[in-house]
């Protein structure tokens, strides 16, 4: 664990800018990049790296959701239902993760990233767009204007129990790995539950804030959140997420999915090699 110096603070802030812009672009928070950088490159303990990253996830969630609010992309009802499960998952993992070894956490991180990359690649062409505007979206469904197809999109939510289960696991993953959990929820909501990817990403971005808050106070109490590093990472991620959000509205969904899959595969390989 390196000493907290002004130079380290500056490096962490710069890493936050990059992670924040990529994270907002992909709708998964910046943690999936920040944790490996803080841990594997800077030598910060995995649990501390994860906790710092999770603090930035809260900032990303609030900043990105403030930007998307008003476009009907965020499904507030579905988000609240799933937060019951993801917050429970966060509390459960936060109370146990202090007793898990860093090696086990690194292996788990590699597996989660790899599975998600595979899921993304298998769903590249699925669009979940129903161009019948007379469809009743039901209690949990929604509708929004899709810039890519130039039409109003209405969708119903299928397989809610699957979405709840994935949200609980995403809460575990969020607290253990500091990565928000969007990398699980966005593909699952898109592939299994019929939620269009932009709505899934916007809803997930809102959810990861509450999910992170369900575990960060416990990690802070364990001493895993050094305030100067957390502050630097948060400020960097906030700057970066503004840039990423700007690009996100202009990127095509297929490219977004491909990019996500490549990034996740790379992170997985790095961590598998480290833990072997």
């Amino acid at each position, binding site marked *: 664990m390196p000493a907290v110096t002004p130079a380290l603070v500056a490096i962490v802030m710069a890493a936050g800018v990059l992670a924040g812009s990529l994270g907002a672009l992909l709708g998964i928070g910046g943690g999936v990049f920040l944790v490996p950088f803080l841990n594997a490159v800077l030598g910060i303990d995995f649990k501390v790296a994860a906790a710092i990253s999770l603090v930035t996830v809260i*900032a990303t969630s609030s900043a990105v959701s403030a930007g998307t*609010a008003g476009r009907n992309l965020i499904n507030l009802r579905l988000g609240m239902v799933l937060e019951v499960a993801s917050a429970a998952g966060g509390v459960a993992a936060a109370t146990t993760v202090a007793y898990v070894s860093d090696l086990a956490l690194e292996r788990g991180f590699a597996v989660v990233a790899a599975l998600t990359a595979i899921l993304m690649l298998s769903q590249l062409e699925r669009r979940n767009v129903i161009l019948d505007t007379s469809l009743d979206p039901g209690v949990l469904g929604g509708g929004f204007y899709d810039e890519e197809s130039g039409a109003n999109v209405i969708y119903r939510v299928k397989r809610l129990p699957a979405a709840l289960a994935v949200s609980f696991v995403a809460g575990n993953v969020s607290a253990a790995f500091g990565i928000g959990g969007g990398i699980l929820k966005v593909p699952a909501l898109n592939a299994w539950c019929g939620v269009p990817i932009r709505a899934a990403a916007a809803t997930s971005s*809102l959810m990861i804030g*509450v999910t992170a808050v369900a575990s960060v106070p*416990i990690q802070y*109490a364990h001493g895993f959140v050094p305030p100067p590093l957390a502050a630097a990472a948060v*400020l960097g991620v906030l700057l970066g997420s503004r840039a990423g959000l700007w690009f996100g509205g202009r990127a095509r969904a297929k490219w977004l999915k491909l990019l996500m899959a490549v990034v996740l595969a790379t992170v997985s390989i790095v961590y598998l090699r480290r833990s072997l």
Partner: protein
Amino acid sequence: MSAGSQPLGRLERHLGRLLIAGVVVSAALLAAGLGLWLAAPGHSATIWLLNAGLIALMGTPIMRVFVSFAEYVRLRDWLFAGLTVVVLAELALTVVVALSRR
């Protein structure tokens, strides 16, 4: 159209304003704390500012759930008002566990 699919545009706009306020306040406190930490190492206000910034950051999503609860009560949407209470109870549990470890 079922009662549950009433538009939530008003709530979404409220939440957008709340979230941006939370981000601005917490970023200002964290920037001030970090600036002081760099300019005057060991200053007593540093840790206060940094912790206040972190608390404002964590408080923002919690406030978001509170505001959602108020809106669901206003809409008499008791199912979703109840769900927000469950989420608030989970967050309260985390804070209790954290405080008991200090």
